[in-house]
């Protein structure tokens, strides 16, 4: 049986909060590490735990990377959360081994551009806490952000974010911390949020509920 939404488990942390928040807004949810189960889902959520290279080095050999890429290419609604927003880009600089030298670890390559570290001499990194979403023109039309007003507060905890080389036209919200970064991206059926909707109280539930509506068409 295919599930309405599958939360991809790449064995790096606890996914209960994400799964329970999706259930709370009425979705039928399964957590799975099985590429076939992921492929059959009507909506895919890639959660945010661990680091860029660690996640990729699990997702590639396990077949999860191919499953996610082919689902997105077939038009299945996809929501990436935190690291899950970062992985669809071409490359990330968050390395945990020597495999890529001082360079970049390849991502899923669904979106052009890179993911780089937030650098600030003045502010503390990681960026942890409640910060605001600033809607772009694109954001005002984004189905993921229905009833999410300008300036809404959401919960962030991250050290890396989409870099300035990403396609400006996919940016739905921006957030300022050290630099201005894309906190929500939207390209066709692919949605990504740099914050944690499952930790963002009522605003987060609204966003997850919007995603469920997108999955249901």
């Amino acid at each position: 049986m295919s599930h309405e939404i599958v939360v991809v488990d790449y064995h790096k942390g606890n996914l209960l909060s994400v799964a329970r928040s999706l259930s709370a807004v009425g979705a039928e949810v399964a957590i799975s590490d099985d590429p076939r189960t992921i492929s059959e889902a009507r909506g895919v959520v890639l959660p945010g735990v661990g680091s860029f290279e660690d996640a990729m080095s699990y997702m590639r050999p396990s077949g999860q990377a191919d499953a996610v890429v082919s689902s997105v290419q077939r038009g299945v609604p996809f929501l990436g959360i935190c690291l899950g927003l970062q992985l669809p880009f071409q490359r990330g600089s968050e390395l945990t081994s020597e495999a890529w030298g001082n360079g970049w670890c390849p991502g899923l390559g669904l979106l052009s551009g890179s993911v780089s570290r937030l650098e600030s001499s003045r502010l503390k990194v990681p960026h942890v806490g409640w910060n605001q979403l600033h809607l772009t023109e694109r954001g005002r039309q984004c189905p993921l952000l229905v009833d999410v007003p300008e300036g809404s507060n959401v919960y962030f905890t991250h050290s890396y974010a989409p870099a300035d080389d990403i396609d400006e036209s996919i940016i739905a919200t921006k957030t300022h911390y050290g630099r201005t970064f894309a906190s929500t991206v939207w390209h066709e059926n692919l949605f990504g949020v740099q914050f944690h909707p499952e930790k963002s109280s009522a605003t987060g539930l609204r966003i997850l509920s919007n995603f469920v509506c997108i999955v249901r068409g």
Partner: protein
Amino acid sequence: MLTKRVIPCLDVKDGRVVKGVNFVNLVDAGDPVELASVYDREGADEVIFLDITATSDDRSTTIELASHAAEELRIPYTVGGGFRDIAGMTKMVAAGADKVSVNSAAIKNPELISLAAAAFGSQAVICAIDAKRVGKADKWEVYVAGGRKATGIDALEWAQEAARRGAGEILLTSMDRDGTKEGFDLALTRAVARAVPIPVIASGGVGTLEHFAEGVIEGEADAVLAASVFHFGTFSIRQVKEYMASQGIPVRLDF
């Protein structure tokens, strides 16, 4: 702009809320997760569960609590109290806790902070410090065992070491003010906030709305923590946040 946070703290013993709770409409006023869910709906930015079960080595009820909280809460939460080693902290994070807070065990073995930061990331590691003023000068000593035992360690130096070792936040409780309702020890809070490059959560002594704002403005804290004024319904979280906002402090009010 990153907002300043308001954090209710729940003392938990054997899986139950200890301090009296004066809340209507709770099915079970002793259930920490149910109480925390109320705070979530009322606008708390995060919650801290402090396990004060004194003797037992068995943390299974607390792990159950962490896992239940992961299912029910839609805001980040911390579990603190009673950690002895990295294994216990790992279990708590695996159960779904966003952060773990370590106190006495880190005094005994500061390496614990380094290990936890490497394992879970600094954002998940809080070093809790119970400090008590020494004499009349601005000098504070670290206490352990629920504030009963002096260590001879200087609070500012310890806060700096904790930050160096990778703690992501300091939860700073004034033992002189805790339970007095006279307000935070602002000199202590400011001294620590200026001494470390990581956020400081002010704790101990809140009795009025003004105290919350003072903690941020004069104490230079990034977050303010209270227990009884919330549990007894003296103030709602919204009241506190609206007051802080009226004093020019950025807080999250869209809930």
